[in-house]
């Protein structure tokens, strides 16, 4: 039997201060970079055209044209403010025009793409064939509406998971898991800022998947905690937590390995369109693992410290509720003290 990390007794919780410092430093660094972006660009986050409104055209060349040639072609077409970036390999270029850069109507993506392709092809001498891979135009109103929807989606997923965990576990667990989830969003945002990844709808989907995945991981550990508490040992929550993390360690390593393998396959082989998604997922595996132990676990301990379960409430409420895995009356701080 091949075993890794079997029957370990690491004191994970001991390092919570270092962990907290590390993650706060990471988030702060990300926010600082966001601030720099906000000063250098129009907005702190690099939103895709789906959110800002505007036009994006992807051109495919038969020979590598060089970024300067593409840019001068775009300038000549009258879009001096456009963003020109290589897209994956040197044969593909992405040209992005924000709504503010003279793209009045949303309707002109195709004709704009065709014009650009034609113009650049002419300037390159005609031997380098240019085709429009994709073109999209979004009006600014649609974009801002979408932004609202994305934020609503994240908030609703918070509420839903909070309620579910409160029902299945206990309010302490729900709060701890939700705070861990918020932490994951913060670190993912910091990661986004550091990588200057474009926030598209697919990226929002990736962030929500990271939330789901991290929550999944937290629940696996909390499930162990719930079970170990049920055994009614004379153990502090800190020890129970440590033991639960150690007991679930082999599972964590295995599952993270398989998910990471799938994510890396996406990152390397699935192409440029899906790359931002893959990056976030890859990062999510790490932040999800981290937050399950050091955010969800630590917060759970802190709540326990603030509003400790008394023997009475434990007998009447928690223990039974935990044993049955059902909802119980939320103990008021006064009653539990």
């Amino acid at each position, binding site marked *: 039997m091949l075993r890794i990390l079997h029957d370990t007794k690491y004191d994970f919780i001991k390092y919570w201060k270092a962990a907290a410092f590390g993650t706060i430093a990471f988030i702060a660094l990300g926010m600082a970079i966001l601030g720099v972006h906000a000063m250098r660009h129009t907005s702190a986050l690099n939103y895709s055209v789906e959110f800002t409104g505007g036009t994006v055209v992807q051109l495919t060349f038969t020979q590598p044209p060089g970024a300067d040639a593409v840019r001068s072609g775009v300038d000549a077409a009258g879009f001096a403010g456009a963003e020109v970036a290589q897209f994956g390999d040197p044969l593909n270029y992405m040209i992005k025009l924000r709504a503010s850069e003279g793209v009045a109507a949303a309707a002109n993506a195709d004709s704009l793409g065709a014009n650009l392709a034609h113009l650049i092809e002419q300037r390159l001498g005609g031997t380098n064939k240019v085709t429009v891979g994709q073109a999209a135009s979004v009006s600014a109103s649609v974009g801002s509406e979408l932004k609202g929807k994305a934020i609503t989606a994240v908030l609703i997923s918070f509420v839903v998971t909070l309620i579910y965990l409160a029902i299945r576990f206990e309010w302490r667990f729900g709060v701890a898991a939700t705070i861990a989830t918020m932490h994951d969003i913060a670190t993912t945002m910091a990661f986004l800022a550091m990588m200057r990844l474009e926030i598209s709808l697919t990226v929002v989907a990736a962030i929500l998947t990271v939330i789901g995945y991290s929550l999944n991981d937290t629940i696996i550990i909390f499930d162990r905690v719930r079970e170990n508490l049920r055994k009614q040992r004379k153990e502090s929550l800190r020890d129970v937590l440590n033991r639960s993390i150690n007991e679930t360690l082999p599972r964590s390593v295995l599952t993270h390995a398989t998910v990471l393998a799938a994510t890396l396959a*996406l990152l390397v082989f699935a192409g440029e369109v899906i790359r931002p998604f893959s990056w976030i997922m890859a990062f999510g595996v790490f932040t999800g693992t981290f937050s399950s132990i050091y955010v969800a676990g630590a917060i759970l301990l802190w709540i326990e410290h603030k509003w400790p379960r008394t023997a009475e409430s434990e007998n009447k409420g928690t223990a039974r509720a935990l044993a049955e895995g059902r909802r119980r009356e939320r103990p008021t701080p006064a009653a539990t003290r």
Partner: protein
Amino acid sequence: MPLKYRVLTIVALCLLSIWALFPRNITTREIGSDRLMHDVTVRHIPLRQGLDLKGGTYLALEVDDSKQAVPADKKADAIERALKSVRTRIEGFGVSESVVQKQGNDRIVVQIPGIQDPQRARKLVEEQAFLEFKIADKTQALERALPRIDQVIKQRGLTPAGDTSTKTAATATKGLQGLLNTDTTKKSDSTKKGAAGAKKDSATAKKDSAAAADSLKLQPGGAFSSLLEQGGMAGEFYVDQTKIPTLERYLADSAVRAAMPPGKDFLAGSDSASLQGKWYRTYYVVDSKSISTGEHLTDARPNQNTLDGTVVEFSMDNIGGRRFRSETGKHIGDYMAIILDNRVMGRPPVIQGAIGTRGQITMGGRSLADAQDLALVLRAGALPVPLRVAEVHSIGPSLGQDSIDKGLRAAIISVALVVVIMLVYYRFSGLLAVGGLVMYMLYTLAALAGFDAVLTLPGIAGFVLSIGMAVDANVLIFERIREELARGKTVRTSIDEGFRHAMPAIVDSNVSTILTAAVLYQYGTGPVKGFAVTLIAGIAASLVTSIFVVRTFYLLWLNRSRGAQTLSI
């Protein structure tokens, strides 16, 4: 459940999945190269591909508020009716597997897969066939606004500096300046005549015209006014064909639009005229408020008559006819512009008397075929509201194929990696999990086909990712079995206990993921919705395979090797 039924259930599920995924004939109606309809039968796996994989055009249409043709409370109803017209039109033009649906309360989404010419597709739905009847302006509103507009254009620096077109514009200006001057004098004359008792008024009017003349002198023939020549009737202008792009560029500027006379529209006509060897396009100034719209149109037929050439005759229902009669009754002697999609059709006729339910659109010198097309579009869907394109995505077919290839490659590699990890770590049990993984993929794809879900690129990514996540339940169970074995329990008991103890964690973690995916499905659009569907189908399939299928595999193995003392895990 007895073992026999477990195996039967799995076999049935597999057969059902294979049936759901079996390639079948799909017949669609398409327009061939000869522009005739053909039934095309293709044999393929019944998994619908999204536009980002298949290539095609996606359009989101919304009500054009700038025209204020519909009060806000009637918008939802109008969109509902516009939906029917757009659908009829898309279907009528014979694009296979197209989708036309309402999104939210105020948007129509059109998806046309595999179309080679996205511009044609857009024209198809953009052709609103929005019919309006407006009164041509006779107050010389535009003439009065011209100095202001010229000023604005100069300030905004819109005049193309130093290129040849300015020179020609400058030479063409001279004749026009005279025309404008006569206009202003004419105006002050009429003010004099009209305002007998109000000398002050006429004085200011004079001053105004003098000021206008001054500004004209300062900037001989402003950029805008130099483009226009007075037409044959009030509110009609001719514009040199070659200058139209310049004019349209001015009109696109927001400051210029703001300087245009309020309550009036400046619209291009459908007619061109040849004067002294030059081609001119007609433009009209009309009241912004329409006296009637095509909302009440009941029929439209092409016709030809000697007087007007090609025409489309239309009739309206009683409500529309009554309104039309009373409105035209108020405007006897005025010119009525018939406007189709912001273009004045033919020359506005004089309203001789109140018009009822019948009328005609003059098509100028165009062919009967054009009239037939117009009549079809009007009949099939004179849109009750003007629509504008809010969003358009077009994906080339090669890009879509590229995405499929890459996605498939990533999926195969991800499966290979997961299989290796499971086999190396769990040996025989890992093999069972891999068997479960194969079933998992089969069930997931079958579920997608069964629910007629659309496979998008993010959907493929979600599927690849779910392969990595699907073994999580297996891992949880296997680790539990290991723990039970370590406590010295028998193989059979360990397996039972392992499954039982892993259950709450599996259920809780998967339900929370399903909840997140459901939120995504509710609030996502297009590709993201595809991602959410794949995720949900994946989780459901993973629960079935890890809890039920792999368990059955174990039971089968236990049956075959009765009294096995060791388990390779």
